[in-house]
């Protein structure tokens, strides 16, 4: 076995603990490879076995290192998902608010009979759920940007649950709102519903990615002893 094969084996053991895409994992592994080669060069010929063994010993258990690096990468990926959600929610919310302030929503959108309270409830639910999702995403960005809270995977999991649940309620309320809107506005509501569905789907997928990343997290000291 050559020194090169030893390093490959070590990096493969680290890689097993890393989340994210191949590109994100590659960046972490390239950095470690450079570090291991530098360490091996300090001990002698980096292509020989003995200097590489000394370098691997310096770096420690690859599983432990993989878990630590994986948690860091996971936290970044969760923050990216939260930023994606905010990147959609904030401009859409601002546009909706500006439109409501300037033009107002015509009262003719409200249906007659039994559908009126359902429509009103759907509109209120969209507003409230969007605000809750936004607050959850902001807290998630803050938690994943903090040195102290960044390793609190359980807190991040709870926040992702809140964001996912409120986005789901928001999406369901949009569907109910379109289904119950007064008939003269149905056509324009369906037209607006297409892009809205696309945006909702993008946000729900981002929330799901965050949940999936966190589901593979190794419990930290904070999580074991909250």
């Amino acid at each position, binding site marked *: 076995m050559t020194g090169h094969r030893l390093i490959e084996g070590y990096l493969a053991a680290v890689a097993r603990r890393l989340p994210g895409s191949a590109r994100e994992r590659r*960046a972490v592994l390239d*950095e470690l490879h*450079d570090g291991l*080669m530098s360490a091996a060069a300090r001990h002698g010929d980096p292509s020989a076995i003995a200097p590489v063994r000394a370098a691997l010993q*310096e770096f*420690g258990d690859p599983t432990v290192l993989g878990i*630590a690096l994986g948690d*860091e990468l996971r936290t970044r990926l969760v923050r990216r998902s939260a930023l994606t959600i905010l990147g959609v929610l904030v401009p859409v919310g601002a546009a909706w608010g500006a439109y409501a302030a300037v033009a107002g929503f015509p009262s003719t959108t409200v249906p007659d009979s039994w559908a009126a309270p359902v429509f009103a409830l759907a509109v209120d639910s969209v507003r409230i759920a969007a605000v809750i999702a936004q607050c959850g995403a902001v807290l998630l960005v803050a938690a*994943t940007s*903090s040195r102290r809270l960044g390793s609190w995977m359980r807190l991040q999991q709870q926040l992702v649950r809140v964001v996912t649940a409120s986005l789901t309620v928001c999406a369901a309320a949009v569907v109910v709102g379109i289904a119950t809107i007064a008939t003269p506005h149905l056509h324009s509501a369906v037209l607006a519903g297409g892009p809205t569905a696309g945006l909702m789907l993008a946000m729900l997928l981002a929330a799901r990615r965050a949940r999936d990343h966190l589901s593979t997290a190794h419990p930290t000291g904070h999580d074991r002893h909250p």
Partner: protein
Amino acid sequence: MNSAEMLKGHLDGLLLAVLADEPRHGYAVVEELRRRSDGELDLPSGTIYPALHRLERTGLVTSDWSTQGGRRRRTYRLTRAGRGELAEHRVGWGRFTAVVERILAAPS
């Protein structure tokens, strides 16, 4: 108590201090810590990388990629926020050591 245990809570400050004078890659940070401590601080190199990633995530350092000898190399440099954090850490450390020294000093 070994040096690794004594370092708990101070690793971030040490890394910021090592990066304050010039940008360095991960293993260069390890070597600089070793050099400045005359070999007393011989941390497992693997502990440095997650710590550097944490500092970058929290905006205290930033990193650039380059190619050296056919290998991709990531080099870290301090941000403005990192310099502020280092200054705070130095002040806090000065206060802490002064207090501990007063307590540990032999009673007069």
